[in-house]
């Protein structure tokens, strides 16, 4: 069923009786050409592009819970392409371009809102680091504008410019940066993949990976064994567990990232704001809630919930930067499980097992990567070759020292 405004009106007049399911609920087949483990954003987009770009039709996505139930349904929805290292730049740039066509591509309104993202800086040194970043973005063909303090004030007059602990020197504005409706991204890709014949199988947990003579032949699941010629592990948050089923040990540690949303408010924040000294970022959702977050809780965890010290730190950062939000009330806090890699960049690569592919290590930047991650993972699975824009996301780069460390904090998983 094709969605449109006209359809909404005609269906409304008919009592909305004619809407059909967004996707089928198929039973798993005995064998697939390709299986994607993980029905999150990345897994669904991988399946979609495998079908769309590479013509595969006999594909299944196996999801142990419900579609989009991982980090794609639990994040602060920021979409940006403001990286400065070769390797990251081209990938996120590609992703942003895919975002810009996503509604048309999927016939689904994911509410991608290019409202502009401002990274604030608080010293001359930070300014130069952001200038390097901004220049990288423009070299890549993306957009960036360096704002001085007055430039920031024009955009964000409500920040505390007078007595905040780390004065605002300026900001790097990324006009094409913004947000999207996170759940809709998962649903849009799910619906798109389903229309291309992909079997989306929910409540199907993978419990083993079958390997014969160094080649993957299928998976064991809570709904029985399923044969497959190719298997992609796309389960960020749980990558280590699933890879362990194939005997692999990954350069990944799992960490909690908390995020917060306030009660609904009339529009008051029109950008995505990132505070360079306080690990704090905020935007306002279309429903009116202030959506914000900070840094990891810092200890390895699979609990998908955090503790008060980081909660308080985030709130304190908000209060020094923009005390205007003080009376907004936090409605809900939640935590996601982050695949933290030793350099803060992801991995999209083959493994030492034939037909087994890995897409993991998204740290806490996975949401914006959803389109390109799927695009490149699909390319890798279909052709056995790394896609041009993901060729530096190698699994062995930590051993060889070809790092992609945007933060510069080194081989400590939680510092990225």
């Amino acid at each position: 069923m094709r969605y449109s405004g006209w359809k909404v009106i005609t269906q409304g007049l008919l009592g909305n009786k004619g809407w059909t399911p967004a996707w089928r609920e198929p039973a798993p087949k005995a064998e697939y050409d390709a299986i994607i483990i993980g029905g999150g954003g990345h897994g669904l987009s991988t399946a979609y592009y495998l079908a769309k770009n590479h013509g595969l039709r006999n594909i299944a996505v196996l999801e142990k819970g419900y579609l989009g139930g991982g980090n794609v349904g639990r994040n602060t929805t920021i979409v940006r392409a403001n990286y400065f290292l070769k390797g990251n730049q081209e990938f996120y740039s590609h992703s942003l371009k895919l975002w810009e066509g996503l509604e048309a591509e999927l016939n689904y309104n994911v509410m991608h809102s290019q409202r502009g993202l401002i990274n604030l800086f608080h010293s001359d040194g930070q300014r130069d680091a952001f200038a390097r970043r901004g220049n990288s973005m423009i070299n890549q063909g993306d957009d960036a504008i360096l704002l001085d303090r007055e430039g920031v004030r024009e955009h964000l007059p409500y920040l505390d410019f007078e007595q905040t602990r780390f004065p605002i020197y300026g900001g790097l504005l990324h006009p094409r940066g913004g947000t999207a409706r996170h759940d809709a991204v998962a649903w849009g890709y799910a619906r798109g993949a389903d229309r291309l014949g992909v079997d989306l199988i929910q409540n199907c947990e993978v419990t083993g990976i079958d390997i014969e003579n160094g080649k993957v032949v299928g998976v064991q699941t809570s709904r029985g064994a399923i044969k497959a010629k190719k298997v992609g592990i796309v389960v960020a948050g749980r990558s280590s567990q699933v890879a362990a089923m194939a005997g692999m040990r990954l350069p990944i540690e799992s960490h909690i990232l908390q995020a917060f949303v306030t009660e609904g408010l009339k529009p008051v924040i029109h950008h995505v704001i990132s505070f360079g000294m306080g690990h704090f970022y905020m935007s306002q959702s279309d429903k009116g809630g202030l959506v914000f977050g900070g840094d990891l809780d810092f200890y390895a965890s699979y609990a998908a919930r955090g503790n008060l010290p980081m909660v308080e730190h985030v709130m304190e950062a908000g209060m020094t930067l923009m005390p205007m939000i003080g009376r907004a009330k936090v409605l809900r806090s939640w935590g996601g499980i982050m695949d933290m890699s030793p350099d803060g960049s992801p991995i999209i690569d083959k493994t030492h097992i034939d037909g087994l592919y890995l897409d993991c290590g998204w740290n806490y930047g996975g949401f914006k990567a959803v389109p390109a991650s799927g695009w490149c993972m699909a390319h890798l699975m279909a052709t056995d070759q790394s896609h041009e824009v993901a060729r530096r996301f190698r699994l062995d780069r930590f051993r060889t020292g070809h790092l992609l460390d945007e933060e510069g904090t080194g081989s400590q998983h939680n510092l990225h």
Partner: protein
Amino acid sequence: MRLTCPLCGPRDRREFYYYGHEDYLQRPGPDAGPEAWDDHLHLRDNIAGEVRDLWYHETGCAQWLVVTRNTVTHEILSTELVADRKKKGVRA
């Protein structure tokens, strides 16, 4: 979250700095080779369950601790001083 520092007693999580898995304790020799070093610094079992990892009592006594805890429930099972582990015969 609360951890018990073997010296200072039960303390709030905010007093501690987290480093990572106790793998960091097993420093390979200078000639151990790239695989051993890769293993030491990067590769992790990353268990959903009981783990042993390293914490620093940063705003307390400045001691490094090995903490045994559960990454799913956040239960803290035991804490010991890194500096004491050789004395106690814990693997070095």
